[in-house]
Structures are given as C-alpha cells and as structure tokens.
C-alpha cells in the first residue's frame, strides 16, 4: 500500500518502471513473472521400481512442506514425471518438463542408468540435477557442471563395509564376489578389488550374473567350490534378494554374507528374519543415524507416512533440502548461482556435517554398515538392523576420472 502522501502520475510511473525492472532482473528460467519456481522429481512411478519413485517424491514433498511451499518469496511448483525406469523415457519426460514447465532443478534419478541419460540433457539445458544411484560416472568420467551426486561413492561404500569386516572378523580373509554384469556391479567389483588390496583381503574368485537373474544356485555352488570365508554380493534389488534366499537354502553357516550395496530396507523386508539375520550390509541411509536433523526427519516422515524413511525417501528429502539451503545462501533461485554455491558448500545434513566436492560434485558423507537382527532382537517391525560402523573415506583422487577443474 502506498503511503498517504499524494503521488503525482510521473512518480507512480517511475515507481512502476523501477519495480518492473527489479522484478525482471530476478526472473530466470524456472521462475515465472508471478514468482513461481518450478522444481521436479523425475523418477519411476510405474514399473518394477515404482516403490522407489514414490518414496523419492514423499521425501521431496516433506522438504517442500518444511519451507511452507516457498523459497525466497517464490512459490514452489513441484512437477512429477514418471520415467518408468527407462533412460529413453526419462530423457523425453525431462525435456518435456523443461520446455513446458520451465523446469530448472530436478531430483533424479534413483536409477543410475536413467540418471546418466538425464545428465546430458541437464548439461545441454543448463538445468541443475541432483542424482543418486551407484554409478561412479556421475562424479567420474561423465562429471558435469550441472550434476551433483547424493549417494556415496562406490569406493567409500566398499571401503567402509570391508573395513568393518576385516576389523571384526580378522580370521576371514578369502572373498568370493557374485557380481551383476552391468556398469553398477562392475564398478562395485573394481572398488572391491581396490579396498581388498588396501585391507589385505584376498579375492578368490568372481561370478558375473546377468541382470534380472532369479536362479542363483549355480553361482553359489561355483562360489562355494572356491572355499571362501566371505561371499560378497555385488548386486542389488530383486536379484540380490533371490541370491540371499537361495544361499540360505544351502544352510552354510561358515561363510559370511556381505552386501556392500546390496539391499535397501524395502528388500530387507522381503526376506524372512531367519534369512537375513547376521548379514552385514552397507547402506547409503538407515533410519537410526544419530543426528538431530535425521531424528527430526524420521519423526515427521513416520507421522505423515506411517513408515520409516529409507534410502529413496532420504534422497528425495535431503537433496531437495540441500538445494533450498544453497538457494538461501546464494540469495537467488538462479540455477547458475545456486550451482556455484553448492560447489564446496559445507552444511548440516541428515548425516551431520557434510561437504560437496567443488570439482566432482560428489556429496562427501558417511556410508553406514549395518548388521541384520534376529527376529527376537527386533523391537518393532521397522527395527531390522543396527548400525555397527560407518566410514567416509573419499575416493582416492588418482582413481577419479573427472576432467573438470574446481
């Protein structure tokens, strides 16, 4: 409201032009004239991994609700696109959201394959991507100025998991690996070899399996014939669940099953407690992380969704929250300003003090090692495992293939 002092027409016109000028300077892609900022969640809403897409969205929504739906005076318009877990669909939906909705930020993707395909669109269109998934390429050979990686690096994951095994079971030295025969599995295998060498563990063999394999007895018999102390499952999702079920049917108690990036909470629930108890798993996130921010996140998530958050939900929440923190710090919603702020940013996340590598855009955060509980040790249906260790050793710089300079 203009004050009671009478203004002449010229003054009003000047004020109008000044206001228009200042608002125009603030307009960027994704921020329309009526101060709406379009952000996206691009993930699987249908298909086999539909559960993950839904959880990423729930996490992201919680972060937006925390901000009462706006940031720096801009109303947040959240657009959701279903990529069906397919790279080509992901690229199409992202391109469409950029052209139709002026999308400039997106959380995506839970799947490395889809996320890497979207990375190229983000680079061309100068859209800021906060990705997840197990591929090291996001921060390695395909690192991009517009892509940040929320999930821990495969090296951090393997080093944390095998370090725990080597400390607590020093008599177990011989490892046999069962590996998913695609980029994710092979990347884990590479870093298993690196970490095993660092920790003085011996790799006695490896069996590759195709994606979507449901029959694992043949790989297990082959593995057992090498007489290992540890079978390290470098596979994930439904394949890993089948492998563990069938390993269980052998009744072998002397071989320790270790899954550095194998099961998330959703898949742990697919196994009966007898099948999973004692298993050592590496996780990007577990609900028991003892930080004030995580406790408050878990409490609110549980209240809204009647379930505890898992990796996918934590990714949606924490990545979206990090973007808001960077916008606040930059005092801008312009993607390029936010991007520069994110590079090297130190902040408090659900993991505690966290930093983003300025060159590779890898979020440097801990990776958690949990041991699955027996049925009678579970306090409630959510209490599947306990955190036994954590590690945050970053990928050695000589192993990183990112060509960017900070």
């Amino acid at each position, binding site marked *: 409201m203009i004050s009671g002092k009478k203004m002449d027409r010229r003054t009003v016109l000047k004020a109008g032009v000044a206001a228009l000028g200042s608002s125009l300077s603030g307009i960027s892609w994704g921020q329309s004239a009526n101060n709406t900022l379009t952000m996206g969640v691009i993930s699987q809403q249908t298909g086999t991994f539909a559960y993950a897409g839904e959880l990423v969205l729930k996490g992201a929504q919680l972060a937006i609700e925390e901000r009462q739906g706006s940031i720096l005076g801009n109303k947040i318009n959240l657009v959701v696109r279903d990529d069906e877990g397919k790279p080509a669909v992901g690229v199409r939906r992202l391109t469409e959201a950029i052209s139709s909705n002026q999308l400039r930020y997106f959380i995506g993707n839970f799947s490395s394959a889809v996320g890497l395909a979207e990375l190229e669109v983000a680079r061309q269109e100068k859209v800021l991507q906060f990705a997840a998934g197990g591929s090291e390429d996001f921060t390695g050979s395909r690192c991009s100025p517009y892509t940040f990686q929320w999930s821990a690096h495969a090296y951090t994951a393997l080093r944390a998991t095998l370090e725990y095994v080597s400390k607590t079971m020093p008599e177990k030295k011989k490892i046999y690996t069962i590996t998913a025969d695609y980029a994710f599995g092979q990347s884990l295998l590479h870093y298993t070899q690196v970490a095993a060498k660092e920790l003085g563990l011996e790799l006695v063999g490896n069996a590759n399996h195709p994606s979507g394999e449901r029959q694992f007895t043949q790989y297990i018999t082959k593995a057992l014939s090498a007489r290992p102390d540890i079978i390290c499952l470098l596979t994930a999702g439904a394949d890993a669940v089948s492998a563990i079920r069938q390993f269980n*049917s052998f009744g072998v108690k002397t071989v320790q099953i270790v899954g550095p990036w194998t099961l998330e909470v959703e898949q742990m629930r697919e196994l009966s407690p007898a099948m999973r108890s004692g298993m050592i798993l590496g996780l990007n996130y577990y609900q028991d992380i003892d930080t004030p921010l995580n406790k408050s996140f878990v409490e609110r998530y549980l209240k809204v969704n009647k379930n505890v958050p898992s990796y996918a939900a934590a990714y949606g929440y924490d990545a979206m929250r990090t973007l808001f923190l960077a916008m606040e710090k930059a005092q801008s919603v312009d993607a390029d300003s936010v991007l520069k702020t994110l590079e090297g940013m130190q902040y408090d996340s659900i993991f505690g003090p966290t930093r983003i590598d300025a060159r590779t855009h890898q979020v440097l955060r801990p990776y958690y090692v949990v041991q699955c509980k027996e049925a009678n040790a579970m306090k409630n249906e959510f209490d599947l495992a306990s955190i036994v260790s954590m590690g945050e050793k970053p990928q050695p710089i000589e192993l990183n293939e990112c060509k960017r300079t900070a």
Partner: protein
Amino acid sequence: MISLLAAQLLNGLAIGMIYALTAFGLSIIKGLLNVPNFAHGAFYALGAYVCFSALQLGMPFALALLLSFVVPALLGAVVEKLGVAQLMNGSYLYQLLFLFGIALILEQLIIIIWGTVGLSAMPPEWLQGAFDLGFTWIPKYLVFNGIMAALIIATVWVLIERTRLGSQIRAGIDKREMAQCLGLDVSRLVTAGFALGSGLAGMSGGLVLPLLGANSTMGAEMLSIAFVVLVIGGLGSLYGALAAGILVGVIQSVSSVFVPSASTVLIYVAMVATLMIRPQGLFGER
C-alpha cells in the same frame, strides 16, 4: 572343470523339473483350448502367495502345497466356465485377450491382498541345508523340488494315460469334434483340463516359494520361460514339456556359469533355433 560342469548339470536338472512342471500345465490347456493361456503365470504367482499365507497360518508345508494347487485350480475352473467357455464361438483373439485381462486382474489382486513387497518363506526344517556330494553341494530343498515335480508329472501322466477321465481329456485334445460326436461332454473336459493346468501352475509356484520367494512380477517372469519350454518341446506335445524343461534348465545353469552374459539370451536362441529347424518342436507332430 569337470566337477563344475557336473555340478551345473545336476543343478540344471533340478531347476528344469520346475520349468517342466509349469510348462506341463500350460501344455494341457494349450492342447484343450488351442489358446495359449496368458494367465498361466498369474496362477503360478497365486500358488506361491497361497502357499505363503497357509504357512503363515501355521499349516504344515504339505497342506500349504496342496492348497497352492487347489485354490488356483478352482479359480481356473471358474475362469474357464464363466469366461473362456462363453467366448468359445467367437474369434480365437477374444479368448486370448480375455486370458490376458485375467492375468492383469490377478496380478493387481495379488498386489492389493499381499502388497508390493516380496515375501519369503523358509523350507521345512528337514529340507534345510545341502547334500555334500564331494564335488559339489546341492540344497536339499532343490532336490526335493526336482523329485516333487517329477512325482507330480508322473501322477498326471497316470491320470491322463491310465484313467477314463484321462483318455477323455486326450480325446478332447486330439480329436475334439470326434469326441463330441461320440457323446463326450467336451465342455466339462475342457473345464477339468483348465483347472488341472492352473492347479499345476499354482503348485509350481508353491514349490518354488522357499527358493524364489513370492512377488507380483514372478508370474510374468515364469510365463516367458514356460512358453519357451512349450515351443521347444512341441506345442501339441504333453511330454515334450518335460524334456524341454530339463533342457532349458540345463542350458541356463551351465551357460550362466561359463558365459553369464549370454545365459538369458541362450534359451531364446534355443527356441528360435527349434522354430527354424523343427517348427513343430522336439516332440511335436507336424
């Protein structure tokens, strides 16, 4: 190397028996209706879920397995009587689409009742652990699976080859019109055959539950393998399914250890090769 190959042959044989059992049921229905049953995978999944629920209720494993046959068999009878039979006079496509629709409905019903999170069940205590054969280990439950599948196939063989009902079903499969002319109630036979085939699919699902678990997509996964087995064995041959099931199991088991990246595609290569060299399948008649 030889011991590894022997281990994989044994493993493949046990897995192949399960494929054979599933394809056997599909073969019966295909023979009776001359329509590929696209709902067969859904009946297989239903069997696994029924078995899981029965075990959860504290029923013994044998009873749970029996229910994994009975429930899909009854549902199969209803689907045939109220749906497939009504479309008998229409185009072949209507039956095909109807069965496809039933598969989708069943898959969604399974998700509504049991949820999207997969389920697991332990084998009975006496079937836990593995046999140490010196050169390899083989899980007791996998051996049990193979033996059970062989026994079920043998029982159905006796039913089909040595009983009056069986001879009528065979007549219905081989010479439908002639059987009708001789006064056989072919529609009743078709319902019984559909129920039997669906029940066998369900029982396969129940049998594999401790090994593969239960999840909403398991039906589609098994259906594609069952069709491969059916094509290799011969579309008109009941017993071709048995040999082809074992063959597919062995190909999968051996190749996944020696050429893992090709193991999935190899069974389809075997199917295409069969179609090109012997289109009627290994045991089918031209």
